[in-house]
């Protein structure tokens, strides 16, 4: 079994190969392209299973310490920097989720994307995306992780802006790339601080207790190095996992095709941020009152904040997008409270049910879109829930799958989300009670519980609006269930959404996942990794708020008529408007950052070419030219005019004047000779 580990590097290679083949060879053939993409990710899935099997078989030691393969990569003075691959329990758990969800999404996309003029290109991009995420998981060092991280950024850019003819899509792609890049740069800086302070980026080397200890004592600008570095690294995660205040890109990412939304929101992109924090958790935990609490604070804010916006959205995918933001906040709460496994567990379950919900929404959009085409209606927005209604009767499979996903998200026993969300809330609850005072854990718990209520509310609203009541548009009336390639992945995901929670139920095998993946940070000796016992009170409270919220939402929207005002808008008034406009964060950013930067750029350009720098150059040049002209003038007038030509002119003048004496008559000359001779004689005689 040990040999199977050697297959690890191949996991990202298959989709990468699929990408290369599609781009260079198969791009004209749609069927072949899709086949290559699905084949690539399928092979990755199988390879992953082999590696997971090896990990399971290898036992506890390997699950903690991991298997690794260093590859020499960068020469650095006298030494060489190694990149490489590694597998431990955590990685194996991720390896179960990522390729599987990707495969299902790919299969789904093969039907969903049919008829798109850039079908092959789509599959090339998603293959690269999957390759990026898989590399990220199997990387044994921060640098390779960062490389994969950025490649995903590229893919998200390409895929969100996939329908770039639409103005909104191309802007959304740009926004996604630039917003996450702000986070990436912070991560980059953190990574390089880490590298320059420790001389290594390999996780296992960094998390040695002595290295961590050294990092906490080293100072960067008066702060412990570990604080600076972990804050910067967290900045990266905030960007990638769309945490407040860098969450703005994620809802706009809905401009991409729906399978992409599923891919970004479930299996790849946003999970990467949480994965990074989870992977680097010991670094955050060295100073417990420092960075780790920031993770929890940001997580709590995001969990609550995302959920509030979500209740006011009408676009079916935007509801889910804000839901993702909020759920990622839960994961951050867990990690911020030191509950490594609670966060990871929620990451895994969330991936399944959020992929399910997105694909389900895609299926609905697909159906409504076809309905609209059938009714020859080109104005209805197929993503607007106000145009739906009563779809349960028309698409049973999708509906049931969607209900399963909703149950998981809302946290209904025994669906996956119940177990994972509960573990997070339990973590907060226990810490609150241990502390005995109202501190961060209490607020985290409160944010989480209120968030759970809001989650249930917006999901109830969505279910009510989409599936119940009467169709509110022609398009919805003509909606039909899509084909098997789309519904089968939905049903598979529904199964996982229902049952995946059982891998970490405290009553079964003592929380199996906990032993398998939860102890990878044990060697760092800075985290308390024991599992939190099941808290029946927490479970009861959250189930109660979930049911309350769900039925509240469902009840209010179940029978909404076309053109009727949104009941929540009536209730909340201006608050609803603020929520609908996402607290005006986008407008604020545009005003503060984008406009300023563009203005600064224009100013710099003017400064450079029109106002200062180039004018100085031209001024120097022109001064030189003027000096030249001046010298030229001096030369003509003074040196040449008065000196050289002046002499000539003098003689010319003298000649002209003197020639008057030359009459040309020899007699005159003779007279002169005579007179001169006489005067000479006279001078001689008189002794002058």
């Amino acid at each position, binding site marked *: 079994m040990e040999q199977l580990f050697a297959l690890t590097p191949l996991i990202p290679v298959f989709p990468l190969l699929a990408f290369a083949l599609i*781009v260079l060879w198969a*791009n004209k053939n749609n069927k072949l392209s899709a086949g290559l993409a699905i084949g690539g990710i399928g092979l990755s899935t199988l390879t992953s299973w082999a590696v997971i099997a090896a990990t399971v078989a290898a036992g506890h030691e390997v699950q903690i310490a991991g298997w690794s393969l260093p590859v*020499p*990569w*960068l*020469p*650095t*003075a*006298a*030494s*060489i920097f190694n990149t490489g691959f590694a597998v431990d329990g955590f990685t194996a758990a991720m390896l179960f989720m990522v390729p599987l969800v990707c495969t299902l999404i790919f299969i789904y996309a093969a039907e969903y994307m049919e008829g798109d*003029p850039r079908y092959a*290109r789509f599959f090339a991009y998603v293959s690269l995306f999957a390759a990026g995420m898989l590399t990220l998981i199997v990387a044994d060092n921060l*640098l390779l992780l*960062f*490389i994969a*991280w*950025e*490649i995903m*950024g*590229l893919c998200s*850019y390409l895929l969100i*802006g996939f329908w*770039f*003819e639409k*103005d909104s899509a*191309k802007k959304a*792609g*740009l926004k996604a*790339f*630039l917003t996450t*890049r*702000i986070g*990436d*740069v912070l991560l*980059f*800086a953190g990574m*390089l*601080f880490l*590298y*320059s*302070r420790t*001389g290594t980026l390999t996780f296992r080397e960094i998390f040695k207790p002595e290295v961590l200890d050294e990092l906490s004592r080293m100072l*960067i*600008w008066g702060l412990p190095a570990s604080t600076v570095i972990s804050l910067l690294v967290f900045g990266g995660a905030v960007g990638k996992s769309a945490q407040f205040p860098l969450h703005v890109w994620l809802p706009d990412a809905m401009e991409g095709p729906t399978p992409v939304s599923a891919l970004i929101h479930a299996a790849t992109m946003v999970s990467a941020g949480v994965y990074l924090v989870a992977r680097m958790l010991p670094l955050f935990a060295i100073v417990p009152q420092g960075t780790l609490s920031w993770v929890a604070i940001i997580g709590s804010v995001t969990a609550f904040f995302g959920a509030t916006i979500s209740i006011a959205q009408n676009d079916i995918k935007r509801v889910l997008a804000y839901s993702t933001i909020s759920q990622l906040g839960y994961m951050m709460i867990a990690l911020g409270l030191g509950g490594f496994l609670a966060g990871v567990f929620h990451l895994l379950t969330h991936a399944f049910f959020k992929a399910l919900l997105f694909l389900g929404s895609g299926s609905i959009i697909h159906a409504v879109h076809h309905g609209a085409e059938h009714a020859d209606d080109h104005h209805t927005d197929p993503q607007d829930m106000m145009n739906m209604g009563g779809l349960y009767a028309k698409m049973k499979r999708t509906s049931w799958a969607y209900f399963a996903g909703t149950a998981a998200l809302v946290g209904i026993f025994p669906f996956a989300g119940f177990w994972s969300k509960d573990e997070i809330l339990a973590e907060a609850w226990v810490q609150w009670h241990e502390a005995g005072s109202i501190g961060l854990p209490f607020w985290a718990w409160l944010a989480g519980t209120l968030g759970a209520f809001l989650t249930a509310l917006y999901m109830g609203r969505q279910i009510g609006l989409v599936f119940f009541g009467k169709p509110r548009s022609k398009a919805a009336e003509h909606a039909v269930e899509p084909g098997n390639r789309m519904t089968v992945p939905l049903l598979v995901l529904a199964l996982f959404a229902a049952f995946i929670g059982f891998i970490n139920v405290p009553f079964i095998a003592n929380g199996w996942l906990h032993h398998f993946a939860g102890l990878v940070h044990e060697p760092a000796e800075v985290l308390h990794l024991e599992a939190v016992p099941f808290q029946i009170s927490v479970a009861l409270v959250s189930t109660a708020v979930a049911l309350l919220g769900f039925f509240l939402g469902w009840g209010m929207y179940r029978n909404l008529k076309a053109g009727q005002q949104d009941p929540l808008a009536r209730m909340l008034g201006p608050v609803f408007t603020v929520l609908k406009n996402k607290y005006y964060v986008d407008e604020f950013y545009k005003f503060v950052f984008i406009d300023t*930067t*563009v203005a*600064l*750029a*224009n100013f*710099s*350009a*003017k400064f*450079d*070419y029109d106002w200062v*720098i*180039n004018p*100085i*150059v031209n001024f120097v*040049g022109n001064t030189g030219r003027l000096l030249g002209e001046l010298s030229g003038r001096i030369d003509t007038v003074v040196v040449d005019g008065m000196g050289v030509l002046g002499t000539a002119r003098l003689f010319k003048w003298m000649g002209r004047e003197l020639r008057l004496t030359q009459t040309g008559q020899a007699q005159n000359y003779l007279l002169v000779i005579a007179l001169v001779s006489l005067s000479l004689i006279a001078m001689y005689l008189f002794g002058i």
Partner: protein
Amino acid sequence: MNIPFILTLILLIPLLGSVLILFIPGSNEKGIKNLAVIASLFPLLFSILVWIGYDRATGGYQFVENYSWIPSLNIQYHLGIDGLSIPMVFLSALLSTLGLWYSAKVIKHRVKEFFVLFLLLEASLTGVFVALDMVLFYFFWEIELVPMFLMIGIWGQKKDRPQYSAIKFFLYTLVGSVAMLLAFIAVYLNTGSWDITQIPGLLSFSPSLAALTFWAIFIGFAIKVPLFPFHTWLPDAHTAAPTAGSVMLAGVLLKLGGYGMIRILIPYFPDVFRASAIFIAALGVISMIYGALVSMAQWDLKRLIAYSSVSHMGYFMLGVAAAVYYGDLTSRTIALNGAVLQMFNHGIITGGLFFLVGVIYERTHTRDLTAFGGLSKHTPKYYAIMMVTAFASLGLPGLAGFISELLIFRGAFATMPVMAIIGVIAIVLTAAYILWKIVQYVFLGDFSQEKWDKIFDVRHWSWGEDIAPFEVITMVPLLIGMVWIGVYPLAILTTINQASYAILSSAF
């Protein structure tokens, strides 16, 4: 692989080609073009042979040729290469070959002169990288101005003010060279030698004289790099130059300054350099951020890329400054590796970008970003190639640009963290101007046939036609380079690392 006088041959063959072309009648364009391309293939081949044949274990200068040239002044014909110059020689040979090949297809006006000058340019550029005698160095350094000057002036487009640009380019760099020449003479008077390899051990300037000489040489190099605020000749020269001229300008010419800094300034004046490292790093960081901002405000594609060169060479400057500042040798070596690699990467990436601008410019005769849009839909091959190059330029991991940025910042974070942390802002700005300006305005959005026909001269570029095969062939070696260095930098870095380590450990 031991070809005698291989370095001389690298210089001589293009020169010979250039002379031979003079004897071909101007009407025989085909013969001229073929001869030029063939003449440039030899240096390329030889530079690869040199790279392979260079013994990394021994290090130091190899393939040395040393003959007396002007004995009365102790000037020698001294050539040799080490890990620093090998990539530069290769870069120069590669871009020359590609430039000639590309020009053979697109130059239709005064063909003979163009190829004569181009080969002369190649010989002189390569000469700077292999010369180990200061006079020889200066000789090639100045020769190179002439063909470039003429290329900009003659083959520039009327509307780009070629004369103004060419003269600006020539005079600006000449100002720097004069200061540099004086400093070289000062060095000679002090040491009695012109030999670049010997001088570091002989030089005994008083501190103030050393500083004066350092700055005189530095300004000469900084103008060439170009470092803020000496950069304004660059956008004008680039916009006016023909495509292949821009490629050589960005790809090789700018590297002369950088190469000189590492080859001459670090070994000669390590202490002065170290003392002013923070200031120089600040100039580098300003170049990075400022160049990126100015790029962002441009609407002319070539001008935008020209300013991006300012920004990218700012990274290089930061790397060099970090390499000479106080810090551990490993970090400093990494920074210098990054700086050298940044020069190489900038050569292939920005060279590639100029070729790609040429693709649309040759067909449409406009570079106005607002005129384009939606090309991604109609020219997928062009889009794909441009995307790889653009993302390499913005430092996407997995492509070449990232590796050098990584190394530079790795060194800078260790030696001068404040500069480094300010510098990383440029990474975001770079992404912004490349994606927002280049990609979004040229490739994304919708584009109809009416608009196409209105903007593009249909004789040159008909609806639905993609990038031509010869343009793809031009780009392929560059793309391979970008991906190769990005994925597996060990191959090129081993050579560079050897030289950087030697330079830094002997200088300080």
